[in-house]
């Protein structure tokens, strides 16, 4: 790794700082929105007639804030740190980087306020109105341009795995975002009929598969070897893991539509290759876990690496679970209910979000030149998030099983409502932990960035 050469690169990295702050801020905002949603499910008449945060609006606001406000910028913050390091050059343009961070925030805010006042295209993960879609594409284009130019001016000829993944993520997402949002049809942002569902889930699935997953893995590939001072276990596995992810993950979005009248051949492909996802996933995990084998002490000692390593464990669970959920017999029970919500949180928070937090804590001391404002608070946040997300996984899976089995046995949905009420309360309590964790993290990040009186390292 390029550890020994880092001195030549200026540690002042306003772009990484700006994305760090962005991520920490939207984590707090997004979890707050999530709590409002959870509140509605317990007490639907609470805040009953406030249009702008009504459940049907707050839910997509929450999701967009998580995906585009918290997780993606968090993973990008780390990327803007490791790109110069790994390529042994300065970032192509810090000005452009900072501008893209500011523009990113404007975009996310515009999207969320838009949904809040009723401007939505009504398609899951593609709600943002057309004008905001364009802004998102510009955001991605700015990032793509900046990192491609950085790659071009690199002094290190070998590209490390993290570079592959992140480049692929931002380049491909710029394209799938346009496709999925049917950007050439500004008024509806949709196709007609069943093809609309197919393109939507091609894209929706690739938000996880071609954006969060590769960027999360890129952070893991960067952080874990450095934290444990170990070379990466295998270059061959890195290669196989990368290409198999791009090939397999990209074309299984139809597993979201197994119970809908879409062509059978498409379902078959998506089922078979959802199971085949075990290959890219296990290759990467074997590679990463063998790299850190016997060095868990080092991981424990570095709060950033601790988050990232935890993320890889969640990555394992979400994918094994996902492969099972793609089996039609399993989906008879798990589809349409909170089981899927559990899976979504394991993936987006447990894996991608936790990894993003790890990235932030890993780079913070390195971009500020000072130790973290409080390692203790970071640890508190770690445990709050970990307990929260593990609890989520258990509670939501349980509710999902109750709902799924009841429906399958012919009980009406209405009858199951009182049964699941206690779990919604548990879910909101666990959500509170996560939200408190997010605010603690925001405080810690702000103090570390701006009001940190600690001695320089």
């Amino acid at each position, binding site marked *: 790794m390029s550890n020994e050469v880092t001195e030549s690169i200026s540690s002042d990295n306003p772009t990484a700082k700006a994305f760090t702050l962005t991520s920490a801020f939207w984590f707090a905002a997004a979890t707050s929105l999530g709590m409002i949603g959870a509140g509605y499910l317990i007490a639907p008449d609470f805040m009953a007639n406030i249009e702008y945060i009504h459940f049907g609006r707050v839910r997509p606001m929450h999701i967009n804030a998580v995906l585009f406000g918290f997780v993606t910028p968090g993973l990008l913050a780390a990327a803007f740190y490791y790109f110069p390091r790994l390529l042994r050059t300065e970032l192509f343009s810090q000005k452009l980087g900072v501008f893209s961070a500011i523009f990113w925030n404007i975009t996310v805010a515009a999207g969320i306020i838009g949904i809040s006042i009723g401007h*939505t295209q*009504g398609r899951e993960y593609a709600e943002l109105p057309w004008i905001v879609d364009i802004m998102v594409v510009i955001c991605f284009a700015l990032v793509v341009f900046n990192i491609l130019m950085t790659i071009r001016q690199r002094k290190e000829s070998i590209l490390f795995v993290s570079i592959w993944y992140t480049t692929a993520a931002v380049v491909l997402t710029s394209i799938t975002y346009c496709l999925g949002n049917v950007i050439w049809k500004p008024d509806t942002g949709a*196709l007609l009929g*069943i093809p609309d569902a197919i393109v939507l889930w091609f894209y929706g699935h690739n938000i996880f598969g071609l954006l969060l997953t590769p960027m999360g893995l890129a952070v893991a590939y960067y952080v874990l070897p450095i934290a444990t001072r170990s070379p990466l276990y295998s270059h061959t596995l890195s290669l196989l893991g990368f290409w198999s992810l791009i090939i397999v993950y990209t074309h299984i979005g139809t597993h979201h539509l197994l119970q809908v*009248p879409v062509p059978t051949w498409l379902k078959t492909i998506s089922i078979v290759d959802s199971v085949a996802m075990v290959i890219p996933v296990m290759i990467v995990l074997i590679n990463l876990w063998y790299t850190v084998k016997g060095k868990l002490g080092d991981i424990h000692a570095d709060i950033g690496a601790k988050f990232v390593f935890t993320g890889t464990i969640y990555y394992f669970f979400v994918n094994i679970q996902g492969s099972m959920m793609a089996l039609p017999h399993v989906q008879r029970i798990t589809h349409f209910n909170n089981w899927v919500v559990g899976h979504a949180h394991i993936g987006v928070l447990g894996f991608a979000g936790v990894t993003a937090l790890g990235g932030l804590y890993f780079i913070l001391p390195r971009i500020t030149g000072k130790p973290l404002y409080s390692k203790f608070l970071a640890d508190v946040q770690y445990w709050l998030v970990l307990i929260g997300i593990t609890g989520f996984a258990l509670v939501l899976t349980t509710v999902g099983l109750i709902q799924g089995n009841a429906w399958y046995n012919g009980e009406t949905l*209405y009858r199951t409502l009182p049964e699941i009420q206690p779990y919604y309360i548990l879910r909101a309590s666990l959500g509170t932990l996560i939200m408190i964790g997010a605010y603690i993290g925001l405080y810690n990040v702000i103090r570390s960035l701006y009001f940190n009186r600690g001695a320089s390292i």
Partner: protein
Amino acid sequence: MRMTPTVIIVGILALLAAITLTVVYWPYATRDITPSEIFRERSSIENTGRKIYLQNGCVYCHSQSIRSIDWGHGAERIAQSGDYIADEPIALGSQRTGVDLSQEGGEHPDDWHIAHFINPRYTRPSSIMPPFQWLAMERIETLTRYIQGLGLKDADRRMERQIYWKQEAIKAYEAGPEQNAKWLSEIVPEGWRNIPNPYPTTDASLHRGQKIYQNFCIGCHGPIGDGMGPAQPWIYPPPLNFTILKDRGISGGILYYQIMNGITGSAMPYFKRDLESQKIWEVGDYVAVYFINQSDANTEPRGIDAAWEP
């Protein structure tokens, strides 16, 4: 393999292009746009209602796609691709926090929906659907038009039935309690009218009946059975005041049949999906004992006593 920028960029773009062609473009190019037998175009007010539906995130709680394994709402018709050919965007939904709505049209008359949108707990006491009173009457009515069109031609047939029986119910209601009670009994098939409740009234059964009443009926018929539940202002003919049924020959069989089957045209829903047989007898008997003050439970002809009877 040496990973140069060119290899990465060309490689990923080529793969994405190939995959997009196969799993997005090909299904698009070979899409089936034959309308299904229930298909019709939506009216313009229905389309406006659909916009309200999308704008307010109904889609996060309601699916519009019936599967072969479903039993509940809309299970009479398994979704076909020809049902969706005019939907842009398609609103399949991925969550059933609430029920599937693809065949919701004509499930209930309009007044039920209005009361339900004002506050879902008025018609469905343990609902967790948030209230939509803030949409204001005009938008609620537009939304209702969309909801009543869900199921397209099938919905239209159900709506015709609702509208016809609504007129009949109003006529009977306006003719006074005597006439109304008579009409209500007459719409029950002959055989049912003469059946008393075959099971005895017990403390336990009344207790269970009360619980069911509170979870299912209280929003309309009210805590004391006088039809003055919170839904009342929006419902016409208003929820039945059970006390008018006294001495009007209401048998356990009539109560059972009405609760099971509902009264099409009035807001009175059917409960045969929500409640099993025992529960229907028990809530019926609860109504008879407490509100009508007259129960024929366990009177002749009652057949052989069931094995569990005390």
